[in-house]
């Protein structure tokens, strides 16, 4: 087994007013509609600072999920301050968003392009605002942070036939060690757990939670059937995966073997340490299209649930990172690793070549998590990857059986 870690492992975090701690001190610059995207991107590019990130929502129509996601990511513990950029006529409630960010104890400013005088003026005003936010965020106190205050999310992307036998179970070993240290771990994509619902429900800490887990996978299957496509990309087949349930079984091993403490939805913060399943498939009849149009849609939902770090396993070779939280990439396939070594943090393909055991790679992933939490840049972070995507969705709040931990506490 991956060596036990205890809670005395500590690193330096940023203290936020809500009591949470961050491992980064990022300033987010957010467009509130696609029409403000260019101006916002120019502000971020001209600021030329690795810790100033571009995020945003493209839609003009109102959407409760998109608002909650923006609120959650702008008040994420890795975020020190926010600049909101609005065109002026879109539906996003910019005043409410601004006041919620300020109420969280963070410096935040709002620019409305139509009021500021257009593109050039807004870019100039935005750069000045970023400078003020940089001055403010630099004052945030650094405090010791412990593993039981860390939230780690996991996702797989560009999976192939090796993912489920090297990188994914190695992340599972790392998750087991983190959960044993009372850290919080989140796995997701119920659409990629189709076929695993029964064995997963058996791991729930209460039978009622188990029933909720089975119901949420059934919901995912219905949703994907209506879409006409499973969560299965052509590259999965190129890499030897034949069916969705085969991909699911491999993806499932990222969760490790800890009991499942709860079922959450995007924006819900796990109430205590343990392993949680994130339900990323919208509720109700399908309305806005595919549940997750690409991997970063899921990554940002893991981040909206408080994830400080993301463990991304890949077989075919994804290169993405993310805005707000660093992404650590674990490559499952040794041939892919040789082609894309410059994009990977961990070579789990060594397991297939008899050069390392699952436990050894699990331990290496754990040490990477601790190093990145301590301030070391992950490979994708160093390369400047800050992908972000947010689209329309609809969710109902989680039911009372989904978080037994909260009820016990």
């Amino acid at each position, binding site marked *: 087994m991956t060596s036990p870690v205890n809670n005395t492992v500590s690193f330096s975090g940023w203290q936020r007013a809500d009591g949470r701690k961050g491992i980064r001190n990022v300033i987010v610059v957010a467009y509130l509609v696609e029409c403000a995207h260019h101006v916002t991107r120019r502000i971020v590019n001209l600021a030329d600072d690795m810790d100033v990130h571009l995020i945003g929502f493209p839609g003009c129509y109102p959407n409760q999920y998109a608002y909650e996601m923006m609120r959650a990511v702008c008040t994420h513990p890795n975020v020190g301050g926010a600049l909101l950029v609005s065109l002026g006529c879109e539906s996003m409630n910019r005043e409410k968003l601004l006041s919620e960010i300020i109420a969280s104890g963070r410096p935040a400013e709002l620019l409305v392009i139509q009021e500021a005088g257009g593109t050039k003026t807004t870019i100039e005003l935005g750069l000045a605002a970023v400078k003020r936010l940089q001055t403010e965020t630099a004052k945030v106190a650094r405090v010791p942070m412990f593993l039981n205050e860390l939230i780690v999310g996991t996702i797989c992307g560009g999976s192939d036939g*090796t993912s489920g036998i090297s990188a994914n179970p190695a992340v599972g070993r790392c998750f087991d060690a983190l959960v044993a240290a009372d850290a919080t771990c989140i796995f997701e994509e119920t659409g990629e757990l189709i076929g695993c619902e029964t064995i997963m429900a058996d791991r729930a800490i209460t039978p009622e939670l188990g029933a909720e887990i089975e119901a949420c996978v059934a919901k995912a299957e219905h949703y994907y059937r209506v879409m006409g*496509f499973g969560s299965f990309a052509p590259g999965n*087949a190129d890499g030897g995966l034949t069916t969705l349930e085969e991909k699911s079984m491999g993806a499932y091993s990222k969760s490790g073997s800890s009991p499942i403490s709860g079922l959450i939805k995007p924006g819900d913060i796990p109430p205590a340490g343990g392993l949680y399943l994130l339900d990323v498939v919208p509720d109700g009849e399908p309305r806005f299209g595919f549940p997750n149009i690409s991997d970063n849609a899921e990554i940002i939902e893991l981040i909206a649930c408080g994830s400080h770090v993301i463990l991304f396993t890949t077989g075919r070779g994804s290169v993405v990172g993310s805005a707000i939280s660093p992404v650590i990439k674990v490559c499952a396939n040794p041939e892919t690793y040789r082609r894309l070594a410059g994009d990977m943090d961990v070579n789990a393909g060594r397991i297939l070549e008899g050069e390392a055991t699952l436990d050894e790679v699990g331990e290496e992933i754990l040490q990477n998590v601790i190093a990145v939490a301590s301030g070391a840049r992950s490979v994708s972070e160093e390369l400047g990857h800050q992908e972000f995507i947010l689209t329309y969705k609809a969710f109902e709040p989680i039911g009372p059986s989904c978080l037994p931990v909260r009820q016990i506490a």
Partner: protein
Amino acid sequence: MTQSADSAAAQKPVIAPVILLHPNDNILVCVKHISVGDSFSIDGELITSAIAIDVGHKIARAALSTGAKVYRYGAPIGSMIEPVAKGAHVHMHNMKSDYIPSHTRTRQNEDRSES
């Protein structure tokens, strides 16, 4: 790769190109590229591959008939739609999902036939 990596590879122990993930499985997973004519052992029987098999792909551990459930990790991952011989490639051409049909770049229509 660099020369030092090549020499490190030369010193590595010889590993079987296919692995069994669970005793109940009826497929094996390729972990090292198999070229046409390469020989390897399945449950003690020497098989010579008629085709190249890439890392991550599956081969039949035993002859499977149409309708047979395919087991990987000890769990069902779909069914055969054509019979397959021991040691032959198991993939989209002879196997299907029991949940939602898979698509590829060229098979994206409703019945997932070539489009």
